[in-house]
């Protein structure tokens, strides 16, 4: 072995060991806790469960508090699916025209898009607006809010990507008699497919993990989302750490699946969108 190869090997091993302690041990802790009996879990010790209770705990967690976790999963799914769908359609349209058309409104629109990325939303006034529209504490209201908050990021991504599509394509389509809507739906949108996938995956993770949004704008027990349910759960079940950690484990599954299947898109979205911003 050359000295260089040895170094590569040693650094790698050290890094793996460190990553094991820093990143994998916490996950293992969650899993072990989720499989323990209540008494054992309340010790918070990093130990192998003496009595393996994984599946009973799983059922118990889903049943506890009137099945609130089921409801939360359903609510979060609806919220995520609909708001991301809305985001994709609305921001693709805006990003497309923004990239193509040089108008005097361009700089203003750009300003607002950037402001949307940077400015923290004004919470209570937003509630006031929602109340005025009779949308406060309702799922449609929350969907519109999530869609709005994600808009800037998506518009930037779409605008950047449309910029890479040659304009001649539009012209060819127009010369062949396509109208603006057809041009967008049939020529442009299909070409945006990779970025659409990226937007869907990245925003789904964001919306699914959003805590502050539903905390402010979607109060009420029947509207509870997974993050709120988990937070409430952590306040109530101090004597049932096993169920609490089972709940953490359960809500980690969707992002984990997203990561396994869409790793490339997530990475692309998080870096390219960021670099452009």
């Amino acid at each position: 072995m050359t000295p260089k190869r040895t170094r590569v090997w040693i650094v790698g091993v050290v890094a793996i060991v460190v990553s094991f302690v820093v990143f994998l041990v916490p996950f293992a802790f969650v899993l072990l806790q989720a499989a323990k009996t209540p008494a054992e879990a309340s010790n918070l010790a990093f130990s192998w469960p003496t009595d393996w209770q994984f599946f009973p705990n799983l059922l118990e967690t889903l049943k506890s508090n009137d099945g609130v976790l089921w409801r939360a999963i359903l609510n979060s799914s609806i919220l995520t699916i609909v708001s991301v769908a809305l985001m994709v359609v609305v921001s693709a349209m805006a990003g497309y025209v923004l990239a193509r058309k040089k108008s005097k409104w361009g700089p203003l629109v750009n300003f607002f898009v950037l402001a949307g990325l940077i400015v923290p939303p004004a919470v209570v006034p937003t509630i006031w607006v929602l109340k005025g529209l009779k949308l406060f504490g309702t799922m449609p209201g929350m969907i519109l809010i999530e869609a709005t908050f994600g808009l800037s990021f998506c518009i930037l991504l779409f605008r950047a990507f449309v910029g890479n599509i040659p304009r001649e394509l539009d012209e060819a389509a127009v010369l062949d008699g396509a109208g603006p809507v057809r041009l967008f739906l049939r020529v442009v949108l299909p070409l945006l497919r990779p970025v659409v996938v990226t937007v869907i995956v990245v925003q789904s993770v964001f919306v699914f993990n959003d805590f502050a949004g539903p905390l402010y704008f979607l109060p009420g027990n029947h509207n509870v989302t997974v993050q709120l349910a988990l937070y409430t759960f952590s306040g109530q079940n101090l004597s049932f750490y096993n169920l609490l950690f089972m709940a953490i484990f359960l809500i980690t599954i969707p992002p984990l699946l997203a990561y396994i299947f869409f790793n490339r898109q997530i990475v692309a979205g998080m870096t390219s969108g960021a670099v452009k911003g």
Partner: protein
Amino acid sequence: MFARRTASRIAAIIGGTAMLAATLAACGSASGSGSTTISLLAGGNDPVNTKFANDLATAFQKENPSITVKVETRPGGTDGDNLIKTRLSTGEMNDVFLYNSGSLFQALHPDSQLQPLTDEPWAKDLTDDFKKTVSTDKGLYGAPWGTTFDGGIMYNKKVYAKLGLSVPKTWDEFISNSEKIKAAGITPVIQSYGDTWTSQLFVLADFANISAQNPNWASDYTNNKAKYSNPPALAGFTHTREIFDKGLMNKDYASLTNVNALKMLATGKGAQYPMITSVIGNVVQSNPDQVNDIGYFAMPADSGDPHATVWAAFGAYIPKSTTDDKLAAAKKLVAFINSAKGCDIQNSVGTPAGPFATSACKVPDSAPALVKDELKYQDAKKTGLALEFLSPIKGPNLEKILIQVGSGISTDKEGAALYDQDVKAQAQQLGIKGW
């Protein structure tokens, strides 16, 4: 190619909408059929409050098969206050909720937020004192649940007996007792900032002593004249800090919870716990054999003549957002609390810590030892109401400020000044004149 992709996308959106519609429909049908479902918000999330609400719901449903009661618990302290305020102002409140009476009740804007219950048949049974704590000029809004109770020091009688200590009357005696307990290797004073609301007792339970010294203090306070930064009210802040400075607290004060603190007191690992006596029900559940080891004494006073601070019973309320069938069902449930069966549940789960606020319920003969200690103060007429029943103003940050003081972050004077600011903000928000 395009069509297929667009179609699948549209299908996805329609699918999402259909799911939404399905859930909405599901919500609608539950209330549409012959039965009614109402929800009950418990008075906290500790074992006693949870059990009380659950037992109440179960017994009520047995008598009223057409009504389903769903129970929800909530945090105590400021978190609970805030949750209730938020739910009321957003129209999301449960159909019946159990909550404090007095100033916390007043802060809910009862006239615009709650259903008046003035004309309900049970209203005539209430004591006049209690009526005041759940009424505004315009009407009565709450039914009582639980008994009145005291705030002060809960202590372990066995530890006191073993070390030959007697119940302290002055603060100096309290400190010297505590030093002796510490020397014996037992935690002298238990603090449980893991439940933030528990930090307030040195201040809140001292109020009867303040009233005893200056009977006008509460009205002066409401009129922006009396302040916590000045004696006699400053004492509570000073005491909170002194316990910290002298190292008389348990080591895990920052994370200990109320329920575990009570276990510590019951088993004699800790000797004294500034608390409200209504929590004794938790000891009945966790350490039934040691309930009678726990006693009560009023907050020691510099005057040497301590008075017990008394809290009125809590209330059960119905929000304005509950109407029609649900309102009728909610009223039935509220009435049920003080029916014969309801009284039984209050006595068996709630563990009476004083007299009831309605003539409909009676205290049983078997009461914990601590209740006898409380009665001594009542018989001697050495009691006073807590400030929250004498003034509508209570600043929302008292518990956090006292944690600052009790963890050595702020001095007693800084803490009191901070709280005076907090009180001012609350008074202004409530629109009270003279602020």
